Every structure is written in structure tokens, then in C-alpha cells.
């Protein structure tokens, strides 16, 4: 091995003859040789380049050979340094090795003596390099492990789901920041028996599904309310961590915030019960009337009978309207509405709709204010949907109006919107009623509205349609004075 390593050698000696002789011997052996003629130069060479081996004269005029060695070692600890000395004694040799020299050569030396010493020097150099390599390798892998751990920790701490690791003794082995938030706890020390600190349902499940069962392989999920009234709801997924023999090493708990989902679920179930209630009411009323007419024990007058039949018919008719409205809402929610969008002249639709209600308007002796026909406004919309919106609002404006009241329709335009205003001088809305105006099944209920029928879905549909065109609808109302609806549609252009 040594023979193959034809290394790079530095000679530091103030005697020129010796330098030349040594250089010649070593170069003949195939080594690469640099020579420095004094200590200063020796330090400069030995620091600038990592030599395999340096042969340093112990006694030089400028700097002591041992100091040269120290300086070289500072920079290159793996350079093997041999001291050459002419007045060798036991003490100097010991001192030199104590101070870090790897060996020494007595001057004068024969070429064989030199080469033998250098061979063992190279041997040492090889071991040094190997040790260095191993050390570096170890450091690198340690660094990598440390880096990997930091990275994983950062990742786990950054995710919004909570992660808890519990060992088989029920102690907390790891947790991330999110788990504290999701469990609504401020602090958790590692190593504590954790089960009792967890929500009861989760703790119980860990014990029952994992600790009490030898080799659990499947995960379990559970939904837990952390703060009441749906303020914080979590889903905990518990998965076993298994040893190689499938025995339980611990449990990893992943916590997910499902509050929003729960809120939606509640909204959905409320909507379903509202729909059920609203659909059943007309059926219950009609069945009630029919039952009375069928029951031999109940005697009713022929007038009552006609009244009950009419009312049953009306309730069932309104049920049909409601079902159609619900289907429309469902289609809108599913984005399954086919719209035939074209330019519609607002003023034309308004007068068309008002004409439809002529009978009702005359019956209530309402005075109608129509927009001027002079400047016509155009919006891009599905004609049927626009008719539906206006019909609904005009119909409301008439139904909820007072006798001899007024209904005013206006069309305006600014830089961004074409605006339709529909204003009645009717019964108006109380502030709490106004708030719920656009929600499904809401209908203002007071002494004035008793005999007004509707599905409670009209305005909800109107709002959905307008919003589908990036428009908006607002309502201003004073109880007892009247209500004004303002519909704004993004502008297209104005007909000249």
C-alpha cells in the first residue's frame, strides 16, 4: 500500500546540500518534493498546501523546527511531521514527539534510513486520512439525522391538524402546537400520563380500542365537541403504531377541526326540518278539513263544506308552488339553470309586469308610478328570470300595500350599475323582520299579513337570481310606512 502512495513531501532545512540530496533521493523514488530553506518558508509552504509528510530540521536560524511543526499542524493536522536532528539525544527525541512530531531522523542518515522512516510516516498518514474520512462520514450522517428531525418537527408543527403520539404506557411522547389549540389546552408536558387530560371520549377509545386489545391494526375516528354550541368541534383519528411483531408500540392521534363542517351540517338539518314542516303544514290542513267532511259525527253546514274545500284546494295549490320553488332553488344550488342571456329593456318588462297585476291594483286602488319611457335602459339577463324577479317584487308591493296606497317603479343608472327601485307605501317591516327577509321560509307575521299567502321562498329565489348576475338587492323599510327594494345589475350600456 505504502509503495503505491507516492506522496507529496515537504523538506524544511537550512542546509542546501542536504535539501538537494534528500530531494534527489525522494524524487528518484517517485515522490513529489517541495523544499523550504528556512522555518518561515516552511510554515508558508506547509500552511498553503496539505503535504502528506513534512521533514523538518529541528534547528534552524530563524525559527525552531518545533514551532514550524506547530504552525503547520494548526492548518493541516493530518500532515505527518518528522523531525531531523543532528544532535539527537533521548531528551530531544522525546520532547519532539511529545510536542506532536510523528517521529525523528538522525542526521546524518543514509538513503535507506530515510526511506524506511518515511515509509512508516506514510503508513501513519494513511491511518490519519482514513480516520479523518470516517469522522467526516459520521459527522455528516449525524448532521443529516439532526436536519431530518428538525425538518420533520417543523413540518408537523406547521400543519393545522393536531398530532399527538402516546406510548403504550399511556404517556405523551410527542405533540404539536395545533393539538393544544384543538384540545383547548395551553400546556402539556411530555411524559405525563396523558389519557386523563384528553377529552373523555378520546381517552376511553384509546384504552378500549388499543390498550385493552393486544394487536390492534385498524384506526378509529370519533367526533368530539370541545367548546359547546359548535364553537369548536374536532374529529380525532386514532391509529396504532405497531412493533415488528405487530404488538402495540403506541397510538398516534390526529385531530382535525371540523367546526365549519358541523355548522354546515346543522344548517342543512335545520333546512331539512324547515322544509318538512312547511311541506307538511298544507297537507295536515287539507287532511284536517277532509277528515271533518268524512267524519259522520261532525255536522257542518253546506257553506262550511264549500269553504273547507276551497281552503284545502288553496293549501294544496300553495304546496305545489312551494315544491316548484324548492326545485328551482335546488337547481340554482347545483348550477343547473340554463340561462338564455340577451339584452332586455328594463322599462318594457316593468310595464309588462304591472299590466299583469291590473286587477289587483284596481282592487286596492293603488296609484302606480312608472319610469319615464324616454331613456330606456338595457341589461343582459335571461328574460324569464328578470320577469320572475320583477313579478315577485311587484306582487309583494301590491300584496303588502295598503288600500289607496302607492307603488313606484324607477330605473336609474350610474357608472357601474343599472338600478331598479320598487317602492311601496305598504305595511313595512320591523327591523327584526327585515333582517330575515331573504332567508328561506321567512314570512313577516303580524295582524296585517294574516290573509296574505306565499311560500316564503320568493325573495330567497329573487336574491339568488340577482346574485347569479353579479348584481345585488337591498331593502329599506320603515314599519307602518313602506318598503323599498333596490336591485342593481352591472352595467352593459345605455340605448341612445
Amino acid at each position, binding site marked *: 500500500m505504502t509503495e503505491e502512495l507516492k506522496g507529496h513531501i515537504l523538506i524544511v532545512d537550512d542546509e542546501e546540500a542536504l535539501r538537494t540530496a534528500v530531494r534527489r533521493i525522494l524524487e528518484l523514488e517517485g515522490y513529489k518534493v517541495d523544499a523550504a530553506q528556512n522555518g518561515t518558508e516552511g510554515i508558508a509552504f506547509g500552511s498553503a498546501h496539505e503535504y502528506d509528510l513534512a521533514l523538518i530540521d529541528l534547528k534552524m536560524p530563524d525559527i525552531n523546527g518545533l514551532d514550524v511543526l506547530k504552525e503547520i499542524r494548526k492548518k493541516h493536522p493530518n500532515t505527518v511531521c518528522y523531525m531531523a536532528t543532528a544532535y539527537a539525544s533521548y531528551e530531544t527525541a522525546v520532547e519532539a514527539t511529545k510536542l506532536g512530531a510523528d517521529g525523528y531522523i538522525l542526521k546524518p542518515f543514509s538513503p535507506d534510513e530515510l526511506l524506511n522512516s518515511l515509509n512508516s510516516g506514510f503508513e501513519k498518514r494513511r491511518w490519519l486520512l482514513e480516520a479523518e474520512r470516517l469522522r467526516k462520514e459520521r459527522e455528516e450522517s449525524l448532521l443529516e439525522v439532526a436536519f431530518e428531525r428538525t425538518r420533520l418537527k417543523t413540518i408537523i408543527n406547521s400543519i393545522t391538524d393536531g398530532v399527538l403520539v402516546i406510548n403504550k404506557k399511556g404517556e405523551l411522547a410527542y405533540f404539536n402546537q395545533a393539538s393544544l389549540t384543538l384540545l383547548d389546552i395551553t400546556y402539556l408536558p411530555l411524559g405525563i400520563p396523558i389519557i386523563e387530560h384528553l377529552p373523555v371520549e378520546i381517552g376511553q377509545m384509546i384504552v378500549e380500542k388499543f390498550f385493552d386489545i393486544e394487536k390492534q391494526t385498524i384506526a378509529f375516528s370519533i367526533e368530539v365537541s370541545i367548546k359547546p354550541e359548535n364553537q369548536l368541534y374536532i374529529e380525532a383519528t386514532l391509529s396504532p403504531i405497531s412493533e415488528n411483531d405487530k404488538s402495540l408500540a403506541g397510538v398516534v392521534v390526529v385531530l382535525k377541526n371540523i367546526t365549519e363542517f358541523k355548522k354546515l351540517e346543522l344548517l342543512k*338539518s335545520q333546512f*331539512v*326540518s*324547515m*322544509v*318538512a*314542516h*312547511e311541506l*307538511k*303544514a298544507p*297537507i*295536515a*290542513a*287539507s*287532511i*284536517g*278539513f277532509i*277528515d*271533518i267532511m268524512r*267524519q259522520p*259525527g*261532525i*255536522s*257542518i253546514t253546506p257553506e262550511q263544506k264549500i269553504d273547507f274545500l276551497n*281552503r284545502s284546494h288553496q*293549501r294544496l295549490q300553495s304546496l305545489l308552488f312551494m315544491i316548484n320553488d324548492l326545485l328551482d332553488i335546488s337547481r340554482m344550488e347545483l348550477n343547473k339553470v340554463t340561462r338564455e342571456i340577451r339584452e332586455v329593456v328594463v322599462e318594457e318588462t316593468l310595464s309588462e309586469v304591472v299590466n299583469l297585476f291590473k286587477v289587483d291594483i284596481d282592487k286596492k286602488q293603488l296609484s302606480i308610478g312608472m319610469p319615464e319611457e324616454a331613456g330606456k335602459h338595457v341589461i343582459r339577463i335571461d328574460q324569464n328570470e328578470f320577469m320572475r324577479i320583477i313579478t315577485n317584487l311587484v306582487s309583494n308591493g301590491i300584496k303588502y300595500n295598503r288600500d289607496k296606497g302607492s307603488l313606484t317603479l324607477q330605473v336609474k343608472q350610474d357608472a357601474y350599475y343599472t338600478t331598479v327601485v320598487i317602492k311601496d307605501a305598504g305595511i313595512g317591516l320591523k327591523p327584526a323582520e327585515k333582517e330575515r327577509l331573504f332567508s328561506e*321560509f*321567512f*314570512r313577516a*307575521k303580524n295582524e296585517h299579513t*294574516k290573509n296574505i299567502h306565499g311560500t316564503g321562498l320568493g325573495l330567497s329565489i329573487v336574491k339568488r337570481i340577482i346574485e347569479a348576475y353579479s348584481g345585488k338587492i337591498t331593502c329599506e323599510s320603515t314599519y307602518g310606512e313602506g318598503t323599498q327594494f333596490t336591485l342593481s345589475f352591472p352595467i352593459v350600456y345605455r340605448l341612445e
Partner: protein
Amino acid sequence: MSLIAVIDDDQDILEASTLILKARGFEVISANNPDDGYKIIKEQHPDLIILDVIMNEPDDGFFLAQKLRKENVTTPIIMYTSIAKATGLDFSSGGMIPVDEFVEKPISPDELIGKVEKFLKKQVEK
């Protein structure tokens, strides 16, 4: 003669129920909102209350039942619902709503009379 209070915001159902009960010989007082219902109950002390959940004004039927119980009115209450099946809620368990029985609308005249007589009989036994 037993006096029955019927409270329902659905005018048609209110009338139908009243007619059925009157045909059977009961005296009936009625109201179409919880506030008026509360008044007639406090003033005339009926033997039985038939109360709708009244969904349009959220919880108003429930609220009235709770209010009456808080004021130590122990008159039996039959509550009309139409939502138990839809929501899968079992109102009878848990005792959240202090009424004696839940009845799913629509209910046939015979059933209604059956329930009413059951409660009035219990009242007499007390």
C-alpha cells in the same frame, strides 16, 4: 265539561282541530300565536293544552311550554310537530322540552280524540 286550549299558527289546522274537539263535546279556546296562547291559558286554566311547535317563529312553541312549566303550570301539553321524522330527533327522550306527548301532524280525528281523552282521564284520576 273539559276545557281544551289549542294553539297553532296555522289558521286552517286551528279551525279543523277546534271543530273536531267541539263535535266531541269539548269546550275549546284557541290562539294563533304563543303570546295570545299564554294569555288564554293563564286566564281560563284549561284542562289540556294542544300546542304546535310553531316553526316560523323559531322555538316559540317550545318556549311557551318551557315558560308555562317554569311558572308551575302543570296542565298536560300535547305538542304537534311535523319535524321529528325529518330530523330523526326523538323529542320524547332527554326531556329537553317539557311536554307530555309529541304528536306528528297530520293526525286523524279519532287519534286526536283518543290522545285527548287519555290525558283528561289521567287528570280526573289525579
